């Protein structure tokens, strides 16, 4: 795909908790409308990387730019930046004391100070889109994992973010619920949303990605188009990683 303007730029990012770097010198760009999929073994730093992008983790070196503005500085107003960067977590993190609708409305009404009726209208539209309009008045605990995650996606979407971060959003789900969440994400991708996705679902990664980034040991080992990456990866480490994965899948089938 022909490169549109850069939405998010990361230059030489280093993350260190004080006992050796977790992320060493990461640089990459995300263009408008692009879907970037991060894969790699557990502990490779992919989730940490995602959390650095919206300031949930501080970084020790390098810089992050959104729309050409540095957002990794000391004076960053994160609450403004985070309205432009939506994030969905592995463990949903809905607010258990609020109904589905109130969960979704918290951001628009408290952060963006939008009028409640207008926000409700949009929330209902989005809920309809993910097939959960009938659940708007229930509490999170009354939902299945897949439903919770779709609500969490709506909660992020209603802020009209420029880019969405997905942190292993299907990892905590029962297998039969994975699909409903991935379908929502696929639809978003087709609608032109800019997304950075951390996932273990290889087939999904292949289907949704414009660009696959393989992280291992805190660095980018390979960055490639999905057909090439999954077809014939350039590096041994990527090949090895993909092999393990297939083996695990075979194993599952054998069960």
């Amino acid at each position, binding site marked *: 795909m022909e490169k549109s303007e850069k939405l998010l730029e990361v230059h030489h990012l280093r993350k260190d908790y004080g006992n050796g770097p977790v992320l060493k010198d990461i640089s990459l760009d995300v263009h408008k409308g692009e879907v970037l999929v991060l894969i790699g073994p557990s502990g490779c730093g992919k989730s940490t990387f995602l959390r650095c992008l919206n300031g*949930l983790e501080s970084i020790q070196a390098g810089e992050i730019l959104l729309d050409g503005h540095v957002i990794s500085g000391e004076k960053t107003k994160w*609450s403004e930046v985070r309205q432009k960067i939506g*994030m969905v977590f592995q463990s949903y993190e809905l607010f258990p004391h609020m109904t589905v609708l109130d969960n979704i409305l918290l951001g628009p009404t408290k*952060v963006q100070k939008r009028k409640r009726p207008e926000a409700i209208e949009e929330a209902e539209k989005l809920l309809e889109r993910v097939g959960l309009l009938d659940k708007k008045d229930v509490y999170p605990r009354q939902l299945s994992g897949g439903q919770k995650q779709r609500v969490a996606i709506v909660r992020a979407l209603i802020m009209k973010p420029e880019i969405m971060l997905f942190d292993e959003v299907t990892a905590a789900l029962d297998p039969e619920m994975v699909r409903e969440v991935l379908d929502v994400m696929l639809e978003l991708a087709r609608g032109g949303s800019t997304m950075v996705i951390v996932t273990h679902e290889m087939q999904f990664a292949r289907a949704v990605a414009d660009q696959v980034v393989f992280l291992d040991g805190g660095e980018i080992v390979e960055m490639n188009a999905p057909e090439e990456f999954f077809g014939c990866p350039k590096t041994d480490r990527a090949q090895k990683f993909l092999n393990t994965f297939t083996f695990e899948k075979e194993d599952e089938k054998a069960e």
Partner: protein
Amino acid sequence: MGKYAHLYVDAAKLTLLLGVAGILISLIIGLVCALIQYYRAPVLKRIVSVYIELSRNTPLLVQLFFLYFGLPKIGIMISSEGCAVIGLSFLGGSYMAEAFRSGLEAIEKSQMESGLAIGLTHAQVMRHVIFPQALSISVPVLCANVIFLIKETSVFSAVALADLMYVAKDLIGLYYQTDEALLMLVIAYLILLLPISFVAAWLERRLRYAGFGN
């Protein structure tokens, strides 16, 4: 029997008044201490933990004796009522702090992150996400503390306050009205404490946010 009822009514009013004042101050002290611990504020955190240990490991009666009989010797004169409220607050503050703290700590850190991720400020997340949940977890312990503190007011007679125990003791000592005095005493405390206990049980059920937290 009714002859002395008004004495008990007055005493109960006094108990309730001082008790409520002490409990309100305890709640404030408790909240402040819990926040200091939650944010691990340096130095202050130490002070709070010393206070909590001192408060939790000494009896209210001894605290009152020190306030009422000890402090005047270095020129600090506090009225009986003042001692009672200060003592109860000193005691209650640590219990309330533990209640709030356990509520706050029960909320996963990721709830804060998910609030921040939709652009809420730290203060907004505390207000809309963390506090409501923490409070609903704390409520049973807070209620138990309220009952505990009202019960503790029964030692106020030791600093010359005409509370329920004082009246009962008077009637026993002066008029040998033991049966009546004791019966009225029990009834008075039941009237004071049973409603609180029922409200506490009801609150506990209600505040669980439609079963959230189970």
